[in-house]
């Protein structure tokens, strides 16, 4: 990577944001598993500087004011092994464990997965199914955005120049859930289709259900119709209702044809993943209070 001129080591978010504004060729560097590969492939010809985020204390996971706050610098391994996350957010644990292989998960961060804004980013549907909010820090101060509104297209987000992802805040509740993906092979492959399902108990023996699909549209999408159907009926859903929901999920998928998989196949597989995820969650239903 000979066209890389400088790496900066800010010690505060403010300093990092200022650097990013002052140097238009600068990009935030977290685990580097996306950035370094793309830089080496010549896909980032204008990037001359990296701003290393590892000194900014972004690696913490805490519970505060009814939210679990996950620092953007937490690695997939850190997320998947943290007791708080394991106890409350099974979909996120499963998602983090399916990013790449061991070596990648020890470097790849949650902030990088979201910052990369790929519709196939595996933790994104998981976080959306858990109603995560992104906490941003920028030259104009702090703000929070629902993750579902953070992406504007493949590789595009609402991040303003100099703005950084500081953390993700998830409502602190015990959920049941699952994340399933279909890739080229079982381990270590980019998703062709992925699905996250999370749910939690509400009044009247029902569950609030959230469903998000990855890699089947320009950004990760929610299936609101299927969510509403499942959330309105007593839990667990009848076979008939589950089948109806499955059809709604398949209809929500709007895959683009690409080299990784044909359109109709991906759409059908979305339904298959949904059925499997539901089965997993109902089977494990007893553990979610």
């Amino acid at each position: 990577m000979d066209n890389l001129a400088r790496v900066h080591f800010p010690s505060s978010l403010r300093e990092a944001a200022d650097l990013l504004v002052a140097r238009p060729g600068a990009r935030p560097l977290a685990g580097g598993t996306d950035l370094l590969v793309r830089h080496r492939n010549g896909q980032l010809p204008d990037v001359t500087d990296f701003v290393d985020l590892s000194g900014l204390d972004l690696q913490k996971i805490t519970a505060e004011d009814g939210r679990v706050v996950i620092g953007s610098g937490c690695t997939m391994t850190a997320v998947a092994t943290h007791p708080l996350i394991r106890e409350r957010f099974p979909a996120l644990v499963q998602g983090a464990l399916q990013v790449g292989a061991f070596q990648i998960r020890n470097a790849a961060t949650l902030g990088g997965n979201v910052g990369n804004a790929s519709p196939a980013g595996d933790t994104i549907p998981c976080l959306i199914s858990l109603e995560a909010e992104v906490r941003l820090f920028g030259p104009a101060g702090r703000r929070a955005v629902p993750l579902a509104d953070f992406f504007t297209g493949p590789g595009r987000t609402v991040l303003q120049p100099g703005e950084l992802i500081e953390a993700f805040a998830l409502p602190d509740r015990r959920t049941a859930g699952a994340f399933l993906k279909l890739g080229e092979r079982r381990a270590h492959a980019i998703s062709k289709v992925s699905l996250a399902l999370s749910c939690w108990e509400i009044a009247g023996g029902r569950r609030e259900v959230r469903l998000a699909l990855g890699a089947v549209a320009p950004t990760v999408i929610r299936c609101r119709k299927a969510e509403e159907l499942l959330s309105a009926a007593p839990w667990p859903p009848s076979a008939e209702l589950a089948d109806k929901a499955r059809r709604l999920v398949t209809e929500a998928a709007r895959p683009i044809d690409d080299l990784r998989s044909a359109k109709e196949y991906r759409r059908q597989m979305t339904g298959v993943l949904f059925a499997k995820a539901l089965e997993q969650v109902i089977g494990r239903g007893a553990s979610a209070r």
Partner: protein
Amino acid sequence: MPTPEPIHIRFSLNGKTVEARVAPGLTLLELVRRQFSLTAAKEGCGKGECGACTVLLNDQPVNSCLKLAATLRPSDRVVTLEGLADDPLMKRIQHSYVEEGAVQCGFCIPGMVVSSYHLLKVHPQPTPAEIKEFHSGNLCRCTGYTKIEQAVAKAAAARKEGR
């Protein structure tokens, strides 16, 4: 483009504190191979897919081709295969690989055995699924994985028997 500014780093390499001056774009893999002549870790793909460059960073396997040397900190501990040369567990693993015929061209092996080492540290008696899972980031183009998996299982069994 401005001239790259070398960056001064200090970290622990195979148990010793070392210092170096590195170009901003230099990877940890290039650093250990070029400046420290530790050539066990290999560059297969240079993009995180093959695992031939696997080293331990703070006891965790990482792809050294995707780690910028400049971002190493004084508290970071890097261990390459050379640093494990006298480790009884690593020796046991290497013997098992040889006994099982798990090595053909050998290019993938330095990375592969570092993953085996990490697995057996974390799960001394791994299940077949754990063996597969912990090596899923290491590609081998010639031996195939069956013999490698057998070698790892054998190393675990030998360890249990105290050999």
